[in-house]
């Protein structure tokens, strides 16, 4: 199956080259959407071997993802993976996300920081029989303990909100590492241009009744990625975007 990785990037000239090289070691079809950067993101990405699409104006991560997915579909991709440009995601997780879709077990695979693999750590430590080799088990002892209290609370509220609005019971939300089957990517309608697209994707899963599953992924927090990461105030912007998008959608 042809796997394509879509990376939205805005002013990421420092990190994007290394990210593309790492991703290309796992997958040869990499689409970078330069979302109107003011730096050399597009040039660095092209030099690193990615197909580069350029937004002439900055339209936000959601808009860039939708553009990348459209290009990947045009290129004939069977599975489309979304990946961040700041280097905090581990390209080795791409295979874990793709595997359940390839096996026909789900239409969408969502990365979760709070799960560990059955077959690796969890199975030995918890004596889990590992009935499903693609799934994971909740791991409260690692990521959650490392998070500051305010982030933990925000995450709890976000998870409760997600369950309330979409009916999906998840362990992580707004994790940018996900994979879609070709059909799901084709049917996916993204209206939120900025950060609210992550919630919109979950709404789409619910609306279409897609089979989904969470897959354990590893997030590498670096000083650079923490600096570029979302702030707490972003939660309010996301809420505002979601409300506006539901009002203006035709």
């Amino acid at each position: 199956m042809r796997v394509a990785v879509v990376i939205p990037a805005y002013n990421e000239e420092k990190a994007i080259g290394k990210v593309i090289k790492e991703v290309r070691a796992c997958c040869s079809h990499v689409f970078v959407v330069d979302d109107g950067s003011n730096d050399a993101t597009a040039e660095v990405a092209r030099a690193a071997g990615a197909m580069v699409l350029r937004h002439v104006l900055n339209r936000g991560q959601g808009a860039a993802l939708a553009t990348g997915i459209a290009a990947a579909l045009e290129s004939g991709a069977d599975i489309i993976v979304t990946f961040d440009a700041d280097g905090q995601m581990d390209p080795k997780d791409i295979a874990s996300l793709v595997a359940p879709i390839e096996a026909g077990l789900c239409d969408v695979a969502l990365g979760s920081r709070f799960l560990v693999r059955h077959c690796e750590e969890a199975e030995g430590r918890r004596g889990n029989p590992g009935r499903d080799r693609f799934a994971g088990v909740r791991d409260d002892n690692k990521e959650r303990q490392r998070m500051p209290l305010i982030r933990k609370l925000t995450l709890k509220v976000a998870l409760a909100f997600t369950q309330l609005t979409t009916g999906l019971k998840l362990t992580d939300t707004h994790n940018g590492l996900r994979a879609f089957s070709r059909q799901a990517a084709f049917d996916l309608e993204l209206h939120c241009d900025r950060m609210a697209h992550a919630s919109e994707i979950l709404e789409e899963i619910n609306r279409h009744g897609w089979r989904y599953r969470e897959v354990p992924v590893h997030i590498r927090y670096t000083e650079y990625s923490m600096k570029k990461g979302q702030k707490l105030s972003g939660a309010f912007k996301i809420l505002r975007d979601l409300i506006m998008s539901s009002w203006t959608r035709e």
Partner: protein
Amino acid sequence: MFAFQIIVILFCLYAALRVWQKMKVRGLNRRWAIFWLVFWLGVGLVVALPWTTSLLAARLGVTRGVDLVVYIAIIALFYFIFRLTVKIEKLEGNITKLVREVALKDQTKG
């Protein structure tokens, strides 16, 4: 009649005339034109005969006519802000579509 009233009435008449001209010359939407005509003539009437608002206010259970005008103005402003926000969101969406089309076309060329 105070000078203030005369100035506002003249302005309202000018605004109503402009709406009329726009409807005739540039094909302004008839419904919108009627709305703005009624609006400006209404403002002119209220300024020329302030007691008319008290009459209406008493019927609606508001003590003073001026209060009624302020209430209506606030509600109308909120409504216009809402309409504008929705319109801006739609425009943003259209800009994104345009930017996406350009990006996909340029990629095909490249």
